[in-house]
């Protein structure tokens, strides 16, 4: 035991000195990339691929939601924030008051798909109907109000699956579909897009929404129409040509004009290699690219 006790101070010192080495740079630079759960999936793939191409740079990716990424950028714990919504004026002012000028990049587009259980007979929904289902004060509470009966859903009640409130998807859906009205109370707030899909796939009464990239074969996606417009199915193509009514740009933000490795990484993402990875994951590219 006495030997152990003599060793302890050295252990403490070694922890402290691990610091001295680390801060001087261990021969590898790190880019902190944080934010949107919609983008995290493609951000992971970018980081993975970039690590192979450029092993001297390590991209650490974390999710948590668009809001999480933006606040991390503002408080200096992220170099690049991923966001599935535009930064709000309030957030930009907050960043500027800390001397950070956020620079915006559109890295791709995402069709926001609505998910239904495969047993649900509905094949088309309008924005108005979605608002009646999700928005506070909306009249649709049961599937029979939409003129259908869903096999396996004996309660007839519409189970609304939504996202947590710091999600960019939540914010975009609120803006684009609910007309900025609040969500109805009693919606289920899921922490991840794939959680939404999983839940809807297993719940006949449910309706949910998230990025098209998260769709699986276990859920149905109705086509979406604006009032009087054509009903358009969500797809990469309909998001690119703008026919799908609820497609949104996906953003990345850097703190100030990027230089060095962050600039190189952003250039790579916006270049053909990065954009083709994005397309491969089910998103629409920011510009036209031809991918194999």
């Amino acid at each position, binding site marked *: 035991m006495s030997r152990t006790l003599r060793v302890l101070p050295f252990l403490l010192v070694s922890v402290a000195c691990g610091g001295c080495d*680390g801060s001087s740079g261990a021969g590898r630079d790190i880019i902190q990339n944080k934010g949107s759960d919609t983008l995290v999936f493609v951000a992971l793939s970018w980081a993975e691929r970039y690590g192979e191409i450029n092993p001297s740079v390590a991209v650490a990716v974390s999710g948590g939601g668009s809001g999480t990424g933006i606040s991390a950028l503002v408080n200096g714990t992220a170099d690049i924030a991923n966001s599935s919504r535009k930064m709000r004026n309030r957030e930009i002012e907050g960043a500027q008051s800390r001397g950070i000028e956020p620079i915006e990049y559109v890295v791709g587009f995402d069709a926001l798909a609505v998910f239904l259980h495969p047993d649900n007979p509905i094949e088309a929904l309008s924005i108005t109907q979605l608002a009646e289902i999700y928005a506070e004060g909306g009249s649709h509470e049961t599937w029979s109000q939409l003129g259908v009966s869903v096999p396996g859903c004996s309660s007839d009640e519409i189970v609304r699956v939504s996202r947590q409130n710091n999600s960019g998807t939540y914010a975009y859906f609120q803006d684009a579909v609910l007309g900025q009205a609040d969500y109805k109370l009693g919606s289920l707030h899921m922490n991840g897009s794939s959680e939404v899909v999983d839940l809807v796939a297993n719940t006949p009464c449910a309706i949910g929404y998230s990025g098209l990239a998260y769709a699986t074969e276990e859920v149905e996606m109705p086509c979406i129409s604006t009032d009087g417009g054509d009903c358009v199915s969500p797809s990469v193509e309909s998001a690119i040509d703008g026919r799908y009514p609820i497609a949104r740009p996906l953003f990345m933000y850097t703190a100030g004009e990027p230089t060095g490795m962050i600039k190189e990484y952003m250039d790579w993402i916006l270049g053909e290699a990065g954009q083709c990875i994005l397309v491969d*994951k089910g998103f629409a590219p920011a510009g036209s690219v031809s991918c194999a």
Partner: protein
Amino acid sequence: MTYSDGGGGTPGQSLMFAATKLNTRNHRLQWLVRALFGLMTLILIVPVGIILGVLVVRGGPAISLEFLFSFPRDAMTAGGIFPALVGTMWLVAVSLMASVPVGVAAAIYLSEYAADNWLTRVINLAIINLAGVPSIVHALFGFGAFVIFAGFGTSILAASLTLAVMTLPVVIVATRESLQTVPMAFREACWNMGATRWQTIRIVVLPNAISGILTGVILAVSRTAGETAPIMFTGAAFFFPFLPHSVFDQTMAMAMHLFVISTAVPGASDELKYGTALTLITLVLLMNAVSIGFRSYLRGKKKW
């Protein structure tokens, strides 16, 4: 419950030992209580058994050397868990380096030096309260104190120190309890030989208390390896394409990895999720087993 007296006595005599109504009722009640409490104990074991069973059955096929020692691929929907495994070990090791010396020293002070005054009582109260703080609050504290204020950034160091603060009360309480089980007479005998307090602690008290201290460390290890919230803000990334080099790197971690592939990544197979959970629980059980083995070895050497 009638006994024959064996001596061929009259039936009236053996009635003396016959169970009365009250006896029977008490016995029945006793049996009922025993069965009920036994059932409760069984219910306690059932979830553990089911969890382990399900994990082994569904996650077992995923476990292979390749799974354990390769990097995740295809946006974490395939490949292995090596960086998460290594990351968890870093987190556990660094946080123990911080929490064990501090916790043991504090416990020694509280148990061997401190007088029973208001200050000691306030410290004790603080320790108990620290143990009750929810892990997400620890996470926010760690984020403010270590990531932002101390300037460690999101790093293994910041995450480990947060975990250390969280596990500190466990180490302190377990150490103090075990120090107090060392009989006072041991210390008195040592003092009478002219030894100082520190000599007494070093030569007599600590060697006799080591098994209890290790219990505290075991508990700290299990908690450290399993926590997600405190490391989420302070040092763990969803994905980090390399193994960490220093305590200033970010890292992946098992608990976090499980959370991520279950909630954020589409298309991760169930086998991958169960395999990760199985590895995590095995890792904790293994670390515990090593400590428990060491502890029983030391206890075997105990001379009292």
